[in-house]
């Protein structure tokens, strides 16, 4: 009899544990209709009034965005948020994995580079119906900026800010030594500056090491080329890729480029960028190849008393090379249980002056003109500098942005980083690096 009981008990337990697995879905679905008070604790995508917002970024952005989420849930009782932020690289891993599990966050920060891929795989919702029914007000956004978030006639992403490539530099250091930086330097002028600064101050230069993908495109633009064409590279020979690698070869040979070894010890992040982080001039850089909106973050990460300046990336033909980049899009995903609420939040994020008074253009110049104007008095001098840079330095002297990069771009960017690395470790020459990029790159482009 005892045995029978034990057997029954075991059976019952097994069945119960199975039942628990099977029913969890229906339970969370019924949760959605429960009173809102209990939902914050329940969490997850199953909750209709619980929105998950994900972005990549830096400390400044994380704090400001989180503050806006808090503000929104204060003003809209019943809406709770889970703000998830990670660094750029991890962000895309996380998003891809989540998409496979059909558990994408409700609102995701989207990049120009990935937009097409996510839309063509049906992971983002078309915002057009919400614009038409008035949930999402885009009347204040310039047509061309709105256009940048559209694919095949649908609008899938709203830009949160306009940026441009920007060379951020240690102004305090250069002022002390009477070195002046002017906008629109040519490549030779830039290299001369690197030499001069190394000689006078001991500070080295980091030419977008490990992150050279945008810079190589920028250099190619300057000579009227693009990196990616349909199914192939946009250059005809390795020779055209060589100038990019030449900079590293010269820099390593003459000693003014930072040692590649220091990057093994850090993450590629604003906080550990050699412009703000390092134990001696030997391991630091006087400049960083960044984006205009990152001035605030770099300034915040900089040690006490270091003022950061902003200028253009060097190019022989600045007008052809430079461009405005609508960036840091927000998209609503197909996995959102309540897209309506997500869109309402998106509307608040771009149109509310109150929200943007917190964000203060950290993601770039706000796309809604009236909002951009309204927040101007609140901006710090640094942030005003960024707006001035966009409006007066880049806008009058730039060309339209390249089309979005294809799917295989990520692999090519990695190849560029690897070649850059081998070059800086002295394993290959600039010519060999260019040759390999041309051959391997063409193969990758053809294969996908």
């Amino acid at each position, binding site marked *: 009899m005892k*045995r*029978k009981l034990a*057997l029954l008990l*075991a059976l019952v337990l*097994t069945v119960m*544990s199975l039942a628990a697995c099977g029913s969890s879905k229906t339970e969370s679905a019924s949760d959605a209709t429960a009173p809102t008070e209990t939902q914050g604790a329940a969490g997850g995508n199953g909750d209709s009034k619980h929105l998950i917002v994900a972005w990549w970024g830096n400390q400044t952005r994380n704090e400001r965005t989180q503050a806006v989420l808090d503000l929104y849930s204060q003003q809209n009782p019943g809406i709770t948020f889970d703000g998830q932020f990670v660094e750029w690289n991890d962000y895309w891993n996380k998003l891809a994995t989540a998409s496979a599990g059909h558990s994408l966050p409700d609102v995701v920060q989207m990049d120009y580079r990935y937009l097409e891929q996510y839309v063509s795989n049906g992971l983002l919702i078309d915002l057009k119906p919400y614009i038409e029914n008035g949930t999402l007000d885009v009347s204040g956004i310039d047509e061309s900026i709105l256009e940048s978030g559209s694919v095949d006639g649908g609008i899938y992403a709203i830009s949160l800010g306009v940026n441009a490539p920007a060379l951020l530099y240690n102004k305090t250091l250069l002022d002390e030594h009477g070195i002046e930086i002017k906008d629109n330097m040519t490549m030779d002028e830039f290299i001369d500056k690197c030499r001069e600064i190394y000689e006078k101050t001991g500070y080295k230069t980091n030419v977008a090491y490990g992150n050279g993908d945008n810079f190589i495109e920028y250099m190619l633009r300057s000579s009227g080329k693009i990196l990616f064409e349909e199914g192939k590279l946009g250059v005809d020979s390795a020779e055209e890729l060589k100038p990019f690698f030449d900079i590293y070869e010269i820099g390593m040979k003459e000693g003014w480029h930072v*040692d590649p*070894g220091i990057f093994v010890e850090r993450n590629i992040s604003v906080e550990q960028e050699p412009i703000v982080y390092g134990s001696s001039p030997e391991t630091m850089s006087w400049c960083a190849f960044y984006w205009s909106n990152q001035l605030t973050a770099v300034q915040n990460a900089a040690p006490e008393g270091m003022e950061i300046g902003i200028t253009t990336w060097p190019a022989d033909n600045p007008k052809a090379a430079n461009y405005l980049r609508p960036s840091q899009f927000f998209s609503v995903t197909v996995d959102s249980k309540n897209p309506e609420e997500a869109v309402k939040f998106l509307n608040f994020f771009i149109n509310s002056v109150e929200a943007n008074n917190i964000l203060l253009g950290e993601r770039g110049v706000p796309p809604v003109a009236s909002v951009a104007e309204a927040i101007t008095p609140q901006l710090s001098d640094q942030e005003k500098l960024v707006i001035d840079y966009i409006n007066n330095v880049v806008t009058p002297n730039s060309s339209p942005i390249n089309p979005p990069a294809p*799917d295989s771009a990520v692999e090519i960017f*990695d190849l560029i980083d690897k070649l850059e690395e081998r070059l800086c470790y002295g394993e290959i020459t600039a010519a060999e690096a260019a040759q390999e990029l041309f051959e391997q790159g063409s193969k990758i482009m053809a294969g996908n």
Partner: protein
Amino acid sequence: MKSKSLSLKQILNEESVAGAIFTLPFIIGFLLFMIVPMLISLYYSFCDYNILSPPVWAGFKNYIKMFTEDSTFLKSIGVTFYFAFVSVPLRLIFALIVAMILFRTTKMTGFYRAAYYLPSIIGGSVAVSILWKRMFAIDGVFNKLLGYIGLNKDFSWLGNKDTAIWVLIVLAVWQFGSSMLIFLASLKQIPTTLYEAAEVDGANKWSQFWKITLPLLTPTIFFNLVMQMINGFLAFTQSYIITQGKPMNSTLFYTVYMYQQSFEFYNTGYGAALAWVMLAIIALITFVLFATKKFWVYDEGV
């Protein structure tokens, strides 16, 4: 009624039935969370799959690409073999030495055993990896210590392609605790009569170790070797957190490369194929280890 309860009783009397029912939760979990995902990944390995869109059948394409075009694949295999074949023997030697030292019971042995065991629990964690990265940075503790004894203290251990892998090996060797415990347990199994007899015959401690301790420990060494070898090949966290394969892929573990292909380049089908090749490699190595067993492992005269 009677016949029914009898038949139930009969079933109950079958120990295999009760056993099967008790193991059912594990079996279900094993099938659901091990076998099913493995089969799915086997399927993916024959597909073009990028996570975002549905997989498309591609035959042996991924496997062919791996062995004909992918130099990084070979590089990462080389790194992984180097890591496993250097760190595992070192770890076992270290574990055995410490086990011999801690074998004699004194007041503090309990404490020391726990203290030396600790790294093998926490050593694989992200926090320790980050700590390790800081310790071996140019301005880290390790260089500071070298500075105190007057050695060159500006060396970039992680930035140099010859030394970076050793930072990871040292971290792996440091986690000798679990092997040490197993050694300790089997040291206690060795009958003291053997040592007494050896002493009577005039053998010194050194030859006692070589003639008695080591031969009798070979089954344990074998077990540790197999287990640690498998762990060595599956090492991921150290490389992923500390170096990400840098510099120049000199620390690119196979598992990290697999992860990069799957989740960074979105070549998930290719990543799955890499995983199956890894399985084959580990199986082969385990097989080879077992094949050599009869030459050096003491089998207690069975």
